[in-house]
């Protein structure tokens, strides 16, 4: 018998390993949060850490509601997770536990519980980058456990009256979409060239998002207990009453609604997302001087307001840490 190469032996063994976590991203976020919390508590025990604990407790209670979404095909239309897709002629549908974005077959609509990327973790030094066989191919996947809602989405567009979070997928030919106003929402991964993606996106029907508040403006919580955003990577949180009142007042002053058809795309790098209790508000810069709330409403907004509010949150966050370090 010929000897087996060591690399082949290890590769075969590795290929037999299947992780036990179905939704590792959520799991790791939870563990990561706890890790950060422990570290913060060690460095600056007290109110800052306690505040994080309080906010972390919230999703544990409220993110639980499950969704039931049987999938069904009727004629050329597939329904899955609240979305419906008109399947292109000559395409097939495939229901899978996990769709692998590296090996996905062209001209296929996947209905998947989860997604993964099986491309190699490493490549030999000096060798060419690994190219997945799905790269550049036209296909799409509706994914239950997906990439999650972001406070600072790469891009926000409006389709069928629904606000969609859009970002570039792991693969260069892939883009990902999900409803922005829902914590749990079915995601859509679309692969192909720009024309393919546009055509495929048109085939997806999304449930309508929340209407604007009856009184106009942005939907905001009556009372704000925290405002959280990102500043150069790490999360920053404001919890003091003065800052929160100012943020709420400034947002409540925005009353000029954006008429249908005049929505612009809120996108990187200028947009600022702020999680305010149970809603997210995103404000654009000069390229799109509008603001939206996941609770409903789209209004015109001063171009610099997002940065201004982010500055308030950063200042509040730093002041809280400094206070604790003095104690």
């Amino acid at each position: 018998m010929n000897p087996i190469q060591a690399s082949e032996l290890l590769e075969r063994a590795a290929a037999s390993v299947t992780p036990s976590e179905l939704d590792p991203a959520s799991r790791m976020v939870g563990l990561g949060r706890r890790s950060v919390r422990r570290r913060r508590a060690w460095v600056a025990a007290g109110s800052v850490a306690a505040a994080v604990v309080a906010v972390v407790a919230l999703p544990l209670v409220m993110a639980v509601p499950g969704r039931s979404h049987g999938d069904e095909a009727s004629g050329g239309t597939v329904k899955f997770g609240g979305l419906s897709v008109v399947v292109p002629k000559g395409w097939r549908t495939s229901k899978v536990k996990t769709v692998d974005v590296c090996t996905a077959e062209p001209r296929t609509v996947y209905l998947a519980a989860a997604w993964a990327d099986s491309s190699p973790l490493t490549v030999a030094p000096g060798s060419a980058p690994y190219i997945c066989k799905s790269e550049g191919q036209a296909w799409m996947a509706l994914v239950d456990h997906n990439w999650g809602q972001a406070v600072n989405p790469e891009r926000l567009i409006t389709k069928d009256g629904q606000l969609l979070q859009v970002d570039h997928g792991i693969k260069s030919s892939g883009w990902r979409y999900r409803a922005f106003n829902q914590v749990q929402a079915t995601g859509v991964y679309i692969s192909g060239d720009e024309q393919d993606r546009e055509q495929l996106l048109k085939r997806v029907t999304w449930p309508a998002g929340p209407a604007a508040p009856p009184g106009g403006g942005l939907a905001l919580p009556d009372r704000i207990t925290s405002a959280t955003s990102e500043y150069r990577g790490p999360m920053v949180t404001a919890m003091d009453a003065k800052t929160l009142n100012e943020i709420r007042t400034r947002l409540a002053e925005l009353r000029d609604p954006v008429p249908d058809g005049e929505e612009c795309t809120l996108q990187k790098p200028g947009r600022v997302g702020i999680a305010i209790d149970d809603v997210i508000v995103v404000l654009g810069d000069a390229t799109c001087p509008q603001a939206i709330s996941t609770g409903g409403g789209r209004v015109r907004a001063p171009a610099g307001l997002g940065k201004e509010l982010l500055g308030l949150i950063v200042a509040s966050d730093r002041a809280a840490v400094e206070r604790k370090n003095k104690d």
Partner: protein
Amino acid sequence: MGLFRRVEPAGYEDFVASRYREIVRLGALLTGDGRLGEDLAQEGLIAAYRAWHRLGVPEGRPEAYVRRVMVRAAMRARRRRWRGEVPTEELPDASGGGFTDQSDLSVQVFAGLRRLPADQRVVLVLRFWADASEVEVAQSLGVAVGTVKSRTSRALASLRAMGLFVDSAKEMP
């Protein structure tokens, strides 16, 4: 509403969702055990979460960072005698032929990996699965290239002695 789910560092969840399986597989090889490998992977990913502000950028190389954390953890486990906690199945008698004759080759490989000292196992995985050069392995472990060579040689010899017909073009005399 899951407030914190929405304010994760940009890109972290994507990274985990897309790379988790491969990272767990690396962990499984580094520990010789699938379950411990997942623990090791999670240790690396938690570290990445904390460091994401500098990893979640185009030049951040989060996978390399996670791998480095996992390798260090696997080596620390050796010092903590973590190896002793790993279940050790009896290896079949090698005299009747190599494991390559058996359908459960992967089971035999993991059993063989568990029998290796952690420092040999880590070198073997980095050299032959992660495709790192001897110099790269030496740098990442903080040992001499000669040490990498000898550990590699001993690891391959051990696997051969266990009945795994291992050959490698990378093995140096």
